């Protein structure tokens, strides 16, 4: 008999208050619970209960770049951010372009036990953009890969992109495109506009993203395939995707928390914490992205959690690495960007941070509603815990967060994965305990 938990008086995404009983890896009951003898009580008063968050875009860095992040530390960051599943991007070393690498990644995730690690496979061998990786082998491996991406690089060759889109239809896969026309962004350092001209930084023009998205939605239409667009960052991209969806093209899109909150003005101090690809854009873009997320043109929020060691950011702007850690701050940032601004409610947040990403990634066991009988993947969030985001809130190995020192409106209080807590009362559960609980859960599932 595993430890059960009773969450009392939490607020569900639909606004109703309820007790939630978590038992044997499942949500045993939602409503008024009176018969929970022996259960550990978690006071849910004032907390929002959300289905466990699912991140379709995480860089876990292992294998190859363990000085930045490992599967263990990355999933600890996920747990601290309320995530119960992460899709691990393929730009590791070696690249996740074979069944062996993706299976290793998934098994490291299972052993750590903080979250489901669902590997993403590379589209092309070594992310080189020259020949297709063994997409079928990865799809049929134990890692069960459904999302393929060369993220970090754009699949810019139109013929290769067409073939990839067509090929993954065989196993209901999806190509997640990092939309960046390479020739238009040679040496690019920040959003191209008035500020890039002033700062003397080579511009990353919006059109370099929009032209690839336009091409790709037309290719997806032509071959009847599913396309997912990573980290949409411009108002123009929103227009293209809106047009494609209206036309019936099977395209989904994501936006990062940072593109929903931060603007290019932050680059003016040349602080590399704000260097990211695609770059921070204008206020108009942020407004368009928020509206698109609210009206469903953009389907999900995905973090693009990109850890880097200190030395990669302690340098002049040009030499600094692109990327920000984002798992730990994602929910609070979404809260600030679209909930506090009145554009979305908590049910919408559950959709864009849990239900839709699980559906796009074909990930079972995640993203369902908080109802009796579903897997116990859930998150408790305190929407009134406004405080300065500080190093204590970061649980991963790297600290390249753009939010350090910035006040965010709330904080994750607890995360339950497979029925056990990975994060409780604002504190990460110890690794040995979590690994033990994970092993027990697997036994239960097989027993």
């Amino acid at each position, binding site marked *: 008999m595993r430890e059960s938990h009773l969450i009392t008086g939490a607020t569900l995404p639909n606004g109703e208050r309820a007790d939630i009983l978590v038992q044997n890896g499942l949500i045993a009951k939602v409503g008024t619970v009176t018969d929970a003898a022996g259960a550990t009580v978690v006071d849910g008063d004032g907390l929002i209960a959300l289905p466990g968050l699912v991140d379709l875009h995480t860089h876990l860095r292992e294998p190859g770049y363990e000085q930045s992040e490992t599967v263990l530390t990355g999933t600890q960051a996920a747990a601290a951010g309320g995530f119960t599943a992460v899709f691990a991007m393929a730009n590791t070393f070696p690249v996740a372009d074979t069944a062996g690498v993706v299976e290793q990644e998934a098994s490291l995730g299972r052993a750590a036990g903080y979250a489901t690690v669902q590997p993403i496979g590379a589209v092309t061998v070594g992310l080189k953009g020259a020949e297709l990786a063994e997409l079928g082998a990865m799809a049929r491996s134990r890692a069960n890969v459904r999302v393929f991406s060369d993220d970090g690089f754009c699949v810019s060759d139109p013929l290769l992109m067409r073939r990839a889109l067509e090929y993954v239809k065989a196993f209901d896969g999806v190509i997640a495109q990092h939309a960046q026309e390479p020739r238009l962004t040679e040496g690019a*350092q920040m959003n*191209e*506009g*008035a*500020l*890039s*001209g*002033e*700062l*003397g*930084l*080579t*511009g990353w*023009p919006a059109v370099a993203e929009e032209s690839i998205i336009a091409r790709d939605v037309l290719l997806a239409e032509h071959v009847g395939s599913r396309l997912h667009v990573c980290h949409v960052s411009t108002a123009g991209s929103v227009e293209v995707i809106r047009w494609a969806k209206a036309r019936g093209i099977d395209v989904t899109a994501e936006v990062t928390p940072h593109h929903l909150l931060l603007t290019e003005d932050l680059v003016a*101090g*040349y602080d590399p914490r704000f260097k990211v690809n695609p770059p921070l854009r204008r206020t108009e873009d942020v407004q368009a992205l928020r509206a698109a997320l609210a009206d469903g043109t953009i389907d999900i929020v995905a973090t693009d959690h990109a850890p880097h060691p200190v*030395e990669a950011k*302690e*340098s*002049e*702007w*040009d*030499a600094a690495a692109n990327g920000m850690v984002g798992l730990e701050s994602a929910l609070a940032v979404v809260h600030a960007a679209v909930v506090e601004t009145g554009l979305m409610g908590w049910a919408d947040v559950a959709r864009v941070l849990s239900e839709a990403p699980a559906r796009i990634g074909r990930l079972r066991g995640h993203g369902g509603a908080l109802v009796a009988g579903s897997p116990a993947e859930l998150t408790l969030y305190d929407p009134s815990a406004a405080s300065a985001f500080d190093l204590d809130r970061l649980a991963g190995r790297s600290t390249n967060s753009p939010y350090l020192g910035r006040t965010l409106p709330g904080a994750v209080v607890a995360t339950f994965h497979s029925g056990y807590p990975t994060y409780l009362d604002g504190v990460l559960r110890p690794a040995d305990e979590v690994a033990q609980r994970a092993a027990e859960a697997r036994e239960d599932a097989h027993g």
Partner: protein
Amino acid sequence: MRHLLSTRDLERPEAIGLLDVAEDMAAVQEREVKKLPTLRGKTVVNLFFEDSTRTRISFEAAAKRLSADVINFSAKGSSVSKGESLKDTAQTLQAMGADGVVIRHHASGAPQTLATSGWIDAGVVNAGDGTHEHPTQALLDAFTLRRRLHGRASRGRGLDGTRVVIVGDILHSRVARSNVWLLTTLGAEVELVGPPTLMPVDTSAWPARIGYDLDAALDEVPDAVMMLRIQAERMHAAYFPNSREYARIWGLDDARFDRLPPTTMVMHPGPMNRGLEIAARAADSPQSTVREQVANGVSVRMAALYLLLSGERGES
């Protein structure tokens, strides 16, 4: 003044004050004894990540004439080119007790990073960063303009009503950026002229007019025409077809030069591509300020080093 990183954030009185100090420094340059004891015991490091002999010797002369000790740190061939970070280099300079660091760097913003990172206490002078700014070049240009226009009565004055046309590769020019901010702060009107490919895509926030037609700009008889060096490698990135076409449309050739009245100054930050952006006759004419610019560069850099390093440190 704690650092000199850009002209963007120079206030008018501050800029005029610096130019006035440069007048005093220029007066010293006319004496038999050209040296002042002012910065005796101070150490100035010329930290050059890019080759620029002209700028380096100008700063070196400026520092030496103020009696500072000068250490030249060329990043080429040193540990820096072998991957040592800016931070490690800065901490080395800090350990050596540098009071001032003159930095030339290929990355825009590197001087600001050096000045604000906390790695170093020294005053930082930007000697050109990427395609961002080159403040002492703009200051010496303004100084040159003011001296030609007002002579001995220059002190205390700005450049109000002065009309300056800057011609060439604006997109990649730190000289153009620094001049746009400084000259307009001093009251001048600036027009930028060049091929559209060599203009930033959005200059709406710049206090300057943008044009593509050099002849039209010259028809308005500006007080000064500043020709920027055109880099040969731009051709290969399709910014313009070839140097012949560039010279024909945006070069200060003999015909264009002949149309200018003798009162219009011809400026160039150097080094010049004679026959490309500027014809030899214009470059060598009495209207050309090129050699004055070099001499004034030392005075302006002395003024900058004096203002940064002579007072007690730690003030803002």
